[in-house]
Structure formats: structure tokens, C-alpha cells
């Protein structure tokens, strides 16, 4: 790489130039520097790289909101969701379930079996903590273990407070093995215990509607129970 002959343009400024966020004079100064500096031009070219971002969770369990407007928005959304849920109850009449009910088919903390789920808990400080509990600001990653011959996909489902949440995008399994990380992370909030499950499908498509009840989980599911830190 050639060297910059003066003070290099910072990565921050190059990114802002790429995003057209610089004032005109600053923009011209950066462009003039790039014209005569090969090293910084290489850096600038790197800012054009498209990077696939991890998906943000579609549903954030117990998402908090700040500000009155956000609270009102949530209230309306909550009413709408409650109405939709009521409609679902009337139409489908699923069996009630709660955090104390165990899914009969899913196994808890499988060890030595051919599938397993392991949670990694990181506090907001970056400290790794026991994944048996959760507290505000913690984030969890899920690692799965399954045979290398396992195909299809895996979906993480969180059951908490009578609801089912899908905090991570489904992962298509091209090659499974030991402690395969599922991309992304999620947070747990609330006062109820949470049941975090990995549901494997063998090539079929996992229908989220059929995963709303933990007692109806497919056999190839495995779960971990996580308690609120206050319940320690």
C-alpha cells in the first residue's frame, strides 16, 4: 500500500463522505486529498463494500419504550395485538400454557444427545455470566450442537409470560456440528422465567404458528430455562 504523504483522512470522514454527510467545503477538501493520495483512495474504496447486516429481531421480547409518544404508540399497538390474540383464541382455541408448563417433547439441557442448545450470556459490561439467569442489559447468543448430517433449518423460540417470541432469524443448516453459533443476539426482559428453545426441522419449513405453544414443539427441539436474576 502506498503511504499517505500528509495526515490521512480518517475512516470516519471517509464514511461520512460516502454517505454525503460532509459540508461542501469539507467534501471538496477530502476529494482533493483522495485525488493525490493512493493510500486514502484505497481506504475510501473500502467504504463502498456492501456488508450484509444481521437482521434485527422481528419481535423484541418485552421491549421497553421511552417518552410519552412511544408509550401511547405501544399502548395502541398492545390493544391491537390483544384484539388479534383474542381473535386467534376464538378461531383456533389453543390450549392455554404458561411459563410453569413444560413442553412434553422438548428436552431440557440435553447432554450427550445428538442435539443441544447452549446459551452464552454477556452483560452490558462485556462480562460473561452464567446463562441460567437474565438481567436488564444482558444479551444472549445461542449455540447449537447437532449431527453433521443434520439438514434443514433451526429456529430459536423464546417462551415467556405465555407468549412465543422469535428473536433470531431462522438459520439454514448447511453443515452442523458442535456449538454452531446462530447469528445475532437477543435480550430477555420481564419477571417471568423464559424457555429458550432451538427447534430443528428436517428439511421442511418451520411454521411459526405451530411453534406458538411449547407443548406442541416438534420432537427435535431442545430448550434451556432462564430465570430472571431476581429469582436467583
Amino acid at each position, binding site marked *: *500500500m*502506498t*503511504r*499517505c*504523504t*500528509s*495526515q*490521512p*483522512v*480518517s*475512516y*470516519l*470522514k471517509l*464514511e*461520512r463522505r*460516502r*454517505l454525503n*454527510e460532509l459540508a461542501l467545503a469539507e467534501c471538496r477538501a477530502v476529494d482533493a486529498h483522495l485525488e493525490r493520495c493512493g*493510500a*486514502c483512495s484505497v*481506504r475510501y474504496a*473500502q*467504504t463502498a*463494500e*456492501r*456488508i*450484509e*447486516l*444481521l*437482521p*434485527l*429481531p422481528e419481535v*423484541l421480547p418485552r*421491549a*421497553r*419504550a*421511552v*417518552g410519552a409518544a*412511544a408509550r401511547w404508540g405501544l399502548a395502541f399497538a398492545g390493544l391491537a395485538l390483544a384484539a388479534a390474540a383474542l381473535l386467534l383464541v376464538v378461531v383456533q382455541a389453543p390450549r392455554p400454557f404458561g411459563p410453569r408448563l413444560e413442553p412434553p417433547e422438548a428436552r431440557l439441557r440435553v447432554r450427550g444427545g445428538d442435539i443441544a442448545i447452549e446459551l452464552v450470556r454477556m452483560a*452490558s*459490561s*462485556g*462480562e*460473561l455470566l452464567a446463562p441460567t439467569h437474565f438481567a436488564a*442489559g444482558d*444479551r444472549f*447468543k445461542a449455540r447449537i450442537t447437532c449431527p453433521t448430517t443434520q439438514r434443514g433449518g433451526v429456529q430459536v423460540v423464546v417462551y415467556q409470560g405465555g407468549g412465543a417470541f422469535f428473536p433470531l432469524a431462522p438459520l439454514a443448516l448447511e453443515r452442523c456440528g458442535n456449538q454452531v*453459533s446462530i*447469528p*445475532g*443476539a*437477543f*435480550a430477555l*426482559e420481564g419477571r417471568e422465567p423464559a424457555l429458550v428453545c432451538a427447534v430443528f426441522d428436517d428439511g421442511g419449513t418451520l411454521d411459526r404458528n405451530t411453534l406458538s405453544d411449547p407443548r406442541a414443539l416438534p420432537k427435535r427441539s431442545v430448550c434451556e430455562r432462564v430465570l430472571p436474576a431476581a429469582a436467583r
Partner: protein
Amino acid sequence: MDAYLRYGAALVRKAERILRDREDARDVVQALFVELLQRGESAFALPYLYRAVTNRCLNLLRDRSTQARLLEHGGGALVLPARTNCEDLAVDLDLLIRLSRTLEREQLELLVYRYLDDLSQAEIAEVMGKSRRTIGKYLAALDTVVAQLAASEEGAP
């Protein structure tokens, strides 16, 4: 979230400069936005996000199990892209991890802006919310500390 789409790639590149691992970098950025979403925040400027990502990466680097994993991932290619700065002090991941055990939190943050991001004094002041004069003093002290540590590492058997 618009900010995630707009700034996500820039922040991943920024995190990757520190962690030297694309997957960890993507993870850090996603986690940041998950937290911001949960706090109901949505309007951000890039410098603010730059600092938030920096601090998250440094938290990871301070964790010993993460250190081992990152170094293992990096294998023999631990050296960061050659600096184009005239002063030309390269801070590789290994040195950064060692410095994370020695430097104060704010010094380490400053070191990242200075030696990995090549931010100017004015930009560091903007990102850290301090005066240029204060940053100037910090930088002078930091340069001395880093030079001493780097020299002692070179002299070590």
C-alpha cells in the same frame, strides 16, 4: 430502523478494525441497535454510534475468553492493515489486547480513535464530547505511554 441500514456497514467496518473478525463485528453492531431499539431511540449521528461501537468492542477485548478466541481466529495474521499515517505506529490486535490490561478505559478508547481510526484531534473531540485542548493533552500523554509499552514489548525476551 433507518440508522441501522444507513450506518450499519460503516460501523461493522469500524468494529472489524478493532476485533479483526467480521462475524464478531456484525454481532457487536446488531447488539448495539437491539439495545437502542429497546430504549426506544432512533435518531443518531455517526460519531455517536462510532463511540458506542468502540466501547462495545473494547468491552469484548477486555474479556479474557474473548481475547483468546479473537487471537485464535486471527492466527498468524494479527497485524492490522498497515497504517498510512506518517507516524506509522502500527497497533496490532495482540498489542491492543495487552494495552487493554494496562491502559485506563478512556485512554484505550482514545488509542483506538488515534491509531486505528486515524481521527484528527478535532474529530476525537467531537466523538468524545471534549474540547480539542483536552484531547491534545490526552494524546500527548497517550503517545508517551504507548511508545513506552511498545518499546518494552519489543525488548522483552
